């Protein structure tokens, strides 16, 4: 097993005329196209990274609109039929007194997606402007976005399990609403957006400017 010690000064693989494999860390000459260690593709920087980030992000934000307007759950009981949206479901949980669960659902379905949109916009804009500020904080933000984005899926899974479980003919049935589909799409699109972001660009600012 190997380990990483530092070279004397911090230089990037690109500055040294090399290209690094993002999959396994192996370093190659700049001309290499395929990693000899893991057969992964080599690219010093992904030139289309920002384009992909914006495209997926906009798709994700568009899908998030119907996800909030249309019902997530269709519930029918003996006495009534009701539809609840994402926010409606959270309010219902609050009224039942389930504060903890209401907070989890609110965080997963509203705070995380919206926070993620803002974070990705900020990261993409700061890279476009070759900003040299807060690079450590921005890198941290990128890591958080990558880690936490998937957790928005909670609400989709809640709908899945509720509609499978609550199928008691006349007494009560729960069915998924169209918002579940658009919400899932929104989460998938923003995950792809975050994955398309080449974090090495955060650290490139000083070089591209010079």
């Amino acid at each position, binding site marked *: *097993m*190997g*380990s*990483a*010690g*530092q*070279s004397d000064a*911090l*230089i*990037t*693989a690109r*500055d*040294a*005329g*090399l290209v*690094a*494999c*993002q*999959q*396994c*860390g*192996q*370093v*190659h000459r700049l001309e290499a196209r395929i990693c000899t*260690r*893991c*057969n992964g593709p080599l690219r010093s920087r992904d030139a289309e990274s920002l384009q992909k980030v914006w495209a997926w992000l906009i798709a994700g934000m568009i899908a998030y609109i119907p996800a909030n307007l249309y019902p997530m759950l269709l519930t029918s009981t003996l006495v009534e039929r009701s539809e609840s949206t994402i926010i409606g479901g959270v309010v219902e*949980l609050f009224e*039942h007194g*389930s504060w903890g*669960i209401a907070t*989890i659902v609110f965080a997963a379905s509203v705070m995380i997606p919206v926070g993620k949109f803002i974070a990705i916009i900020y990261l993409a804009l700061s890279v476009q402007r070759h900003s040299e500020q807060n690079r450590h904080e921005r*890198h941290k933000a990128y*890591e958080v976005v990558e880690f936490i984005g*998937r*957790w928005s*899926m*909670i609400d*989709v*899974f*809640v709908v*899945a*399990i*509720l*509609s*499978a*479980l*609550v*199928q*008691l*003919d006349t007494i*009560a049935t729960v069915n*998924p609403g169209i918002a*579940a*589909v658009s919400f*899932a799409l929104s989460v998938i699109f923003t*995950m792809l957006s975050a994955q398309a972001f080449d*974090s*090495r660009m955060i*650290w490139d600012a000083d070089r591209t400017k010079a």
Partner: protein
Amino acid sequence: MTTDLPPLDELVACPQCDTLHRAHSLPDNARAHCKRCGIVIMTSQPAAMARILSLALTAFIMMIAAISFPFLTLDAGGLHNATSVLDAVLAFNDGYAFPLAVAVAFFIVVIPLIRLGALIYALGPLVREQKPREGARTAFAIAERLRPWSMAEIFIVGVTVALIKVAGLAAVTIGPAFWAFAGVVVITVLKDQLICRYSIWEVLDKATR
């Protein structure tokens, strides 16, 4: 500029910020961080390979149990409904929601199983100190590439939320598959923490040569 650099095999670049480091041996249970952005570049845990393999095998078997046994059972007003994990997936099977059913099936069952299978395939021979199987590199690359799309742990939190929503409405019984699934989640987290990409790629590479 490349003249004063050590041979390429002794260098490692941070996958997230491209900073070059010199690779050297690490004491047991140590972690090496990137000097610039701070992410963990490599770890060294004794017998990590054997532990990853055994955890992956355990998780694989428990996942089979989790999809075969009843997951949750609901009783209300004399009516009874048993649900397996696959039923939960098929809840979306009518009309417009069908693609979602496929996606959910992939996120909670298919992708976790592919990841586990690929890891077992790639690491099995290495633990016995044999030559890696053909396609072992592709298999390990797939297992790592799919990591963010394997959402078993998120599903189990979703189930907990759903249980609390239903609790007032009807009596819910938790079946054996629920515990098996929870087990898969815990074991998968432990296993993923043991995986040091750099070390595994190095072993896969050197064993092939």
